[in-house]
């Protein structure tokens, strides 16, 4: 009797499904992975963090040259020999140590001055990083129902993994999975990610750029950019698109789902808009950016605003004329609420 063939791809899918099911059932606590990450971070040395002050502090400690030369040895006689040599060269050792100490001290002093200047620049520029972190924290939930059909339509039948960055509460990921797409989410905010994980969805706790950087080139059949594309500065957006482009397989799809500039800062996005480093681009700008980067079949779909000026009843004698004008004013005032841009990665 021949052994049944083992399909490793199927095994992987079964393992992932098992993990999702156990998470959904609560058997795997949603915060467990994060607790492990936090615990390891606690034991990482100061220079393993991004803290500038801690790094300078570490450099200052390293500048202190040890004047006592180690002379111990397990080999008989060697310890004595080392002590004699140490005694003989002690004056030279001191001379070198003083010079190296002075050099190190001068460098760390210069670093302190540089740090002070950077602090001042950050203060004058309104602490862009802090504002960005706050903006991200206050990012409002997006109404995925508006663009779900368009996104699912673009990615249905994708022959590989699809990453949704940022995934938010996972609504869009769930819709894609329900449509048979091998989708997972990327969400940087723990509490939101945990809620999505608890729904049994596969969510990586990471920011979009960080996650995509960690993916292998050509690894993904589709990437959805959502949420973050409305807050990032233009330079960061270019960076994000370049990374995403490199991670897409040939023929893979990049989907940008975003609120439109005219809707940005209205309603629930008020706080987020005030604190964001950037703002949403127009759909036409995305089309231009993606076309310039070699994407093919770049299309955009706009979704009209639900807010409209109230038209006159048709019984009014001037209803037709006035309502036409009201429609024009509504379009000028509210425009489209959101859009989806879909682009296909051309062969390299």
């Amino acid at each position, binding site marked *: 009797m021949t*052994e*049944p063939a*083992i399909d*490793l791809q199927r*095994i*992987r899918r*079964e*393992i*992932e499904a*098992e*993990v999702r099911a*156990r*998470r959904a059932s609560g*058997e*795997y606590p949603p915060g*467990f*992975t994060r607790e*492990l*990450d936090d*615990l*390891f971070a*606690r*034991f*990482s*040395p100061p*220079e*393993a*963090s991004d803290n500038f002050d801690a790094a300078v502090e570490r450099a200052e400690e390293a500048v202190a040259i040890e004047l006592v030369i180690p002379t111990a040895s397990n080999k008989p006689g060697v310890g004595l020999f080392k002590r004699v040599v140490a005694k003989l060269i002690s004056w030279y050792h001191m001379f070198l140590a003083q010079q190296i100490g002075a050099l190190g001290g001068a460098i760390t002093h210069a670093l302190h001055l540089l740090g002070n200047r950077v602090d001042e620049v950050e203060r004058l520029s309104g602490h862009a990083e802090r504002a960005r972190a706050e903006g991200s924290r206050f990012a409002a939930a997006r109404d995925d129902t508006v663009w779900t059909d368009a996104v699912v339509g673009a990615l249905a039948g994708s022959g590989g*993994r699809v990453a949704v960055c940022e995934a938010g509460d996972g609504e869009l990921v769930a819709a894609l999975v329900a449509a048979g797409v091998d989708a997972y989410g990327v969400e940087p905010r723990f509490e939101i990610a945990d809620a999505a994980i608890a729904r049994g969805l596969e969510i*990586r706790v990471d920011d979009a750029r960080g996650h995509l950087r*960690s993916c*292998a080139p050509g*690894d993904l059949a589709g990437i959805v950019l959502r949420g973050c594309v409305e807050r990032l500065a233009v330079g960061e957006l270019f960076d994000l698109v370049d990374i995403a482009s490199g991670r897409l397989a040939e023929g893979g799809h990049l989907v940008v789902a975003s609120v439109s500039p005219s809707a940005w800062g209205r309603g629930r996005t008020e706080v987020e808009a005030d604190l964001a480093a950037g703002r949403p681009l127009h759909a036409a700008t995305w089309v231009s950016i993606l076309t310039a980067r070699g994407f093919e079949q770049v299309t955009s779909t706009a979704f009209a605003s639900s807010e409209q000026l109230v038209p006159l009843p048709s019984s009014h004698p001037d209803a037709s004329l006035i309502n036409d004008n009201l429609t024009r004013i509504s379009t000028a005032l509210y425009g489209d609420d959101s859009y989806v841009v879909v682009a296909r990665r051309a062969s390299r």
Partner: protein
Amino acid sequence: MTAIHQFVPTLAPRDAVGGHYLAVRDSLRDAGYTSEIYAQEAKEEYRRLARPFRSFEGSRNGEPTWLMYHSSIGSPVADFVVARREPVIVDYHNITPASFFARWEPYVAGQLALGRRQLAKLAVRASLGLADSAYNAGELRDLEYDRVEIVPILLDVSQLGGDVDEATRDRLERQRSDGGTDWLFVGRVSPNKAQHDVVKAFAAYRRFHDDQARLHFVGSATSHAYETSLRDFVHALGLERAVEFAGSVDDAVKHAYFSCADVYVVCSEHEGFCVPILEAWHHDVPIVAYAAAAVPETLRDGGLLLPSKDPDIVAAAAARVASDRALRDHLVAAGRERLATFSLANSRAALLAAVASVAGDP
């Protein structure tokens, strides 16, 4: 007769690349080339096998002479080779990106960054770039090496086994008699090999699948700071009795660890080839690996490749491999099959063909 001399930063025992240098020398000599190894540093056991690189004075009898530089870290040997007049072949074993070490060991990061700069400088001088994986070949092409050939590392796969240290095996077998799965990872304790992610996955495995499981790390540390953090992490998780740091061991002890392992787990962020995968295949240990850098290329279907190293996923994959006999047998058989493609004869033939294409016959 044509001479092809190797120039290496360090020649050390218990090192796959060190073994490669010796195998290259023997292959070149067997083919009829004159060949010596010149090194910046040769460790005690190998001191008689290498000459100081600065003692190289070029051909004395006018024989055509080529320099083969092995690139894996920054070294004055590279500058020496660049400054020579002889034609150059670069054998690239990958240089770990400095970013992995910058925060842990700034000095090592500096050496790695230097190595990458030197590799770029060598592109102008090199008539041929050799790479032991397509991944490494891609990096050479990115640096605009005109001609790149893939030559797998010269490793006698039939010699991956050998003597087993009985004392170590007895100790490991005694532990196994109490039950529990044995995880193994062999390689330097180094940030790019991400042993901390193996520990995270192992913690998940102990909690959700097998509370008797053990994890063995075999290999010396290239970063004291990283190793210290790793040990503290293990201690904080209360796993100090379940996680062993065996350090640098001789081959017989290493074989004992492989002979008692149930699953070989790789969570590395960066590997230029990953020789221990071949050792795991040889010892019939099934592999669960995170798909990063050259690992997917080396492993192919000879292990369970994971697109994520989420601890829950890695743990579930290891549990599946440990409990699913059919899957385990399949992975072991696939590993054996894949291992055969890395035979020394194949690799030697590829090396000699590549070398002859630029240096001519001996």
